[in-house]
């Protein structure tokens, strides 16, 4: 069997992602207007939101894959789920860190317990637990099944968490002055802001697809190595 080469389309996608990111970065730096109240730190917002949305997409894909894995029992879906979780965690971490950088000058604190921040943090915890669960299981089939169940349970609780914290925060007096509209990113975007925002969203989407493809491919290659190793062991016996 000859080794499988990286598909051309994937290499192309890598370059496209790089290009799109560079473009978006340039737009953020040179094109996007300087927001008056928040200053230059507002520019974090473009990547912050795009990373958050792409991260959510990763978790969403992972949940779909988990349901499919439980339905079909195919290990390919397990690989697809793990890829979604890992990339989702990285992008969500990026989102949280960039958010903190933005929050420091704007809200005068690195962190507030607002629904979005808290939910993002809890999601990271849930998917870290997902990875720990996986590491405690050796049999691939069982690992796929149990991890899928936890992915589903975890994802069900995410909207509940978000909703409950929002009820808690909106009725409860807010501790830090973060109830202004900027906390929700609702400040008015002018056309050049919009252009910048959507281009960084597009860049992160392409980046997501490229990363996802790589991770999925890697997972399948790993599975194949395990299979071949097992076959060799049997022959050697």
């Amino acid at each position, binding site marked *: 069997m000859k080794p499988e080469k990286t598909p051309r389309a994937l290499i192309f996608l890598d370059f496209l992602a790089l290009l799109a990111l560079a473009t978006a970065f340039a737009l953020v730096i040179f094109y996007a207007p300087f927001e008056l109240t928040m200053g230059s730190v507002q520019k974090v917002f473009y990547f912050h939101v795009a990373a958050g949305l792409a991260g959510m997409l990763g978790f969403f894909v992972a949940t779909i894959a988990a349901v499919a894995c439980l339905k079909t029992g195919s290990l390919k879906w397990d690989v697809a789920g793990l890829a979604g979780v890992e990339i989702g965690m990285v992008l969500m971490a990026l989102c949280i860190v960039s958010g903190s950088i933005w929050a420091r000058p704007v809200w005068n604190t690195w962190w507030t317990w607002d629904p979005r921040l808290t939910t993002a943090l809890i999601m990271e915890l849930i998917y870290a637990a997902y990875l720990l669960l996986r590491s405690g299981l050796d049999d*691939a089939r069982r690992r796929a099944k149990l991890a899928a169940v936890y992915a589903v349970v975890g994802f069900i609780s995410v909207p509940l968490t978000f909703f409950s914290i929002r009820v808690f925060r909106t009725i409860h007096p807010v501790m830090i002055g973060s109830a202004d509209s900027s906390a929700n990113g609702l400040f008015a975007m002018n056309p050049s802001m919009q252009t910048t925002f959507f281009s960084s969203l597009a860049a992160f989407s392409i980046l997501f697809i490229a990363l996802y493809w790589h991770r999925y491919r890697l997972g399948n290659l790993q599975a194949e190595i395990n*299979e071949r190793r097992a076959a060799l062991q049997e022959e050697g016996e």
Partner: protein
Amino acid sequence: MILPQALPEETRRAMLNAVNLTRSFGNRQVLRGLSLTVEPAEIVSLVGINGAGKTTLLRVLANLLRPEQGMVRFGSYTPLNAPAEYRRHIGVVMHTSMLYDNLSARENLRFFSRLYQIADSDKRIRQVLEMVALNSRADELVRTFSRGMQQRLAIARALLHDPDLLLLDEPYTGLDQRSSELCEMLIRQAAADGKMVLLTTHDFNQAVAISTRVDLLHDGKISWSSPSAGLSGKSLRATFNELTVFSGSHKGHGVNT
């Protein structure tokens, strides 16, 4: 061999049929397209080297393990179309006792008779305790039982709901001379009642003595099968060695006899 026609009920005539079973653990393929049939009143001894997959096969047949491919059928029931009905007809004894240490023998059996919805359970419990000669210790905690007594109670649990198929994984382990004679008698009695018995053992003499048929599990399949009538422990050992130890694979694995 007792002919199935002599038996009363319709279900007694149903046989166990396993077709083309495959199952692997991690990367190790344990069952590779195994097929097996057990007919009423048959006692089948399953032999094979350690790790050949005897326990795995029993677990698949007991609906404790899902095969990757293939199917198991008992009469018209399969684990897929009627799992509960399928399990109702099976009694299982495994390596571990599957009992609760902090309950007495009677309490254990009472619990399982509730799970199996056995009518007049107190009477039935007395009966099976009598069968395994544990009546005098019925109200003592299982924790205080010796290995042999636990094994006997496990057999009583397997017989409790009067199953048509008995799956016994090394039923003689830990039994003293008297208990093992008792166990043998129960197995013969079950077959005489038209039940099917599939048991695993490492003792070739016992394998031949108790059974009506001996099956050898090797390379994930039943690779050899013979009626016990013409066999002796010695000839079975010779065949076993020839087919397993010298077949090129699994060299150096010990065979306990």
